[in-house]
């Protein structure tokens, strides 16, 4: 019966791996969705911001020597930087979807090539946290990865609380509902826009910092994850943040589960087929109610 136990262990292990990855993708997807919902910016540079987070985390860690501090620093620095980019450039074209795509493609190229020029093209590794291997229901699993998923979950929880219970959160919801009315009522709309873009970009960078120890840090890493993030946001529903988290975890967990039976590439193809079916069946996202289309 040893083989059978191994089989179940493998299933649990791969699914857990998928969930951990899903929590990282969820950070990027929530950031993307938040930015799109409030500013109407289709942020193609989200993958590049994730890469910047990972690269900065690696770079800062060489000086600071502390992983946790470098992750936080990288996320905050990218968030502040992105706020500046929003104020200087993206502010002029809010809600013009096609133009935001073009400009953020330009920014993606600038970030990636800039990182290549400054940090070089080598694949770097980050040590990450040194936590013991835990045994979950008889399955050994690296504690550092669980920690990573936990941090992501905690940050998303904090974000929810921030949106729900603070003045800024209230302003954000007001601006999303009706920017002109919000402005008339004295909401600092410009500040809310800048802050939202900074938070969305910071989430991507945090994802990069968290992913740094489990993937090779390289300049192209943003290109690989970008498609997944966009799919997650669409399938979860535009403007639906819990939907993004749910779909991210479901997608990556099912992909992880599939790798037990087929090789990783075919697992990706299967998950892509699944997502296509979901989009065809629920065009408004799986959690969004069917809205009546006007015009």
């Amino acid at each position, binding site marked *: 019966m040893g083989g059978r136990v191994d089989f179940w262990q493998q299933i649990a292990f791969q699914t857990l791996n998928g969930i951990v990855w899903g929590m990282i993708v969820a950070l990027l997807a929530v950031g993307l969705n938040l930015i799109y919902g409030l500013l109407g910016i289709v942020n193609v540079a989200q993958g590049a911001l994730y890469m910047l987070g990972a690269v900065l985390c690696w770079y800062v860690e060489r000086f600071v020597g502390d992983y946790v501090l470098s992750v936080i620093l990288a996320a905050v620095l990218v968030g502040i930087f992105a706020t500046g980019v929003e104020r200087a450039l993206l502010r002029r074209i809010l809600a013009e979807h096609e*133009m935001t795509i073009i400009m953020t493609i*330009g920014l993606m190229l600038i970030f990636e090539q800039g990182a290549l020029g400054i940090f070089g093209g080598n694949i770097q590794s980050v040590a990450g946290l040194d936590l013991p291997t835990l045994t979950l229901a008889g399955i050994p699993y690296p504690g550092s990865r669980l920690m990573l998923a936990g941090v992501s979950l905690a940050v998303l929880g904090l974000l929810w609380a921030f949106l729900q219970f603070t003045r800024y959160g209230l302003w954000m919801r007001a601006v999303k509902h009706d920017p002109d009315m919000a402005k008339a009522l004295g909401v600092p709309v410009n500040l809310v826009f800048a802050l939202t873009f900074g938070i969305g970009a910071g989430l991507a960078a945090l994802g990069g910092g968290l992913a740094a120890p489990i993937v090779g840090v390289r300049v192209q890493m943003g290109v690989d994850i970008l498609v997944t993030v966009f799919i997650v946001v669409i399938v979860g529903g535009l403007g639906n943040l819990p939907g993004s988290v749910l779909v991210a975890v479901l997608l990556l967990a099912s992909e992880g589960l599939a790798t037990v039976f087929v090789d990783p590439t075919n697992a990706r193809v299967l998950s892509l087929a699944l997502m296509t079916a979901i989009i065809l069946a629920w065009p408004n996202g799986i959690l969004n109610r069917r809205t009546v289309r006007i015009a």
Partner: protein
Amino acid sequence: MRPWHGVAVLVVALVAGLSLPYQSSYVRLLITEIMVFGLLAVSFDLLFGFAGLLSVGQALYFGVGAYLMAFAAQRYGLEVPAAILCALAGVLVLAVATGFVCLRVRGHNFLIITIIFSTAAYFLATNWSELTGGDDGLVLESKVFRLTGETLTNTGRERVVLACFLAAFGATFLLLLSPFGRVLRAIKENDRRAEFLGYDTARIKLAAFCWAGALAGLAGALYAILFRHVHTGLLHWIISGDALIWSFFGGVGTLAGPVLGVALLLPFEEVISSAVGLPKLFTGILLVLMVLVNRKGILGMLAWLRSKVR
């Protein structure tokens, strides 16, 4: 879209193409490369600029066209025209099948499904490396490209690219000047209204989707002929992204603009990469500046300048 823009593109391409034997090999490659990627950019523009369908999946047809060309010429020993026709037929079948699915949804969903299809194809091709050669791809010897029993020379292969470019661009331009093109634009403006006017909008969109797929497939087949090398990277969405960049840079919805965009950006990147390095960095800066200064691309900017001069 102005008729003289199309004529200008055809005349310039013909002159440049006929001057090829007198150019350095570097310039020859650049000119023919512009024609190949020009068709890819036109394929994007046909969908987005005329039918209002934002597709980031044109790499699928480009890559499949390139591979079908390679297989037809290398494995089955077909002569170049027959091989091109085979590649086109294969791409058309794929475009009908994928278009049928993609066009069931609209807006963001359409965009995402086109990305999903090209990404899935990229993964499948990477996995099936005995057939596709994976990332390294397949290198085609020049002797596989034959016409009337003779192996094509470099000049011969460049002439094939030129002829195909002229034919495909000319035909697409005429198509969009025709009533079909006007209906397509009516659908872009308001597809409900076009439907009420009695047009079968679903079928017209599918036709445009297939034509665009065929154009991208032809561009891929020409890529295989020109570079004698096909690899799975041709299926990656980054290629579709390039088509989008070129189209917007030249001026979307003009058909001549995308070719102009390729003709400006490719040499620009060549010059930058030999002078400074990191060419895509400067392309990125150009894109950002373009959006800030002028949103209608180079052709739009020229029209604006003309209106100022008058």
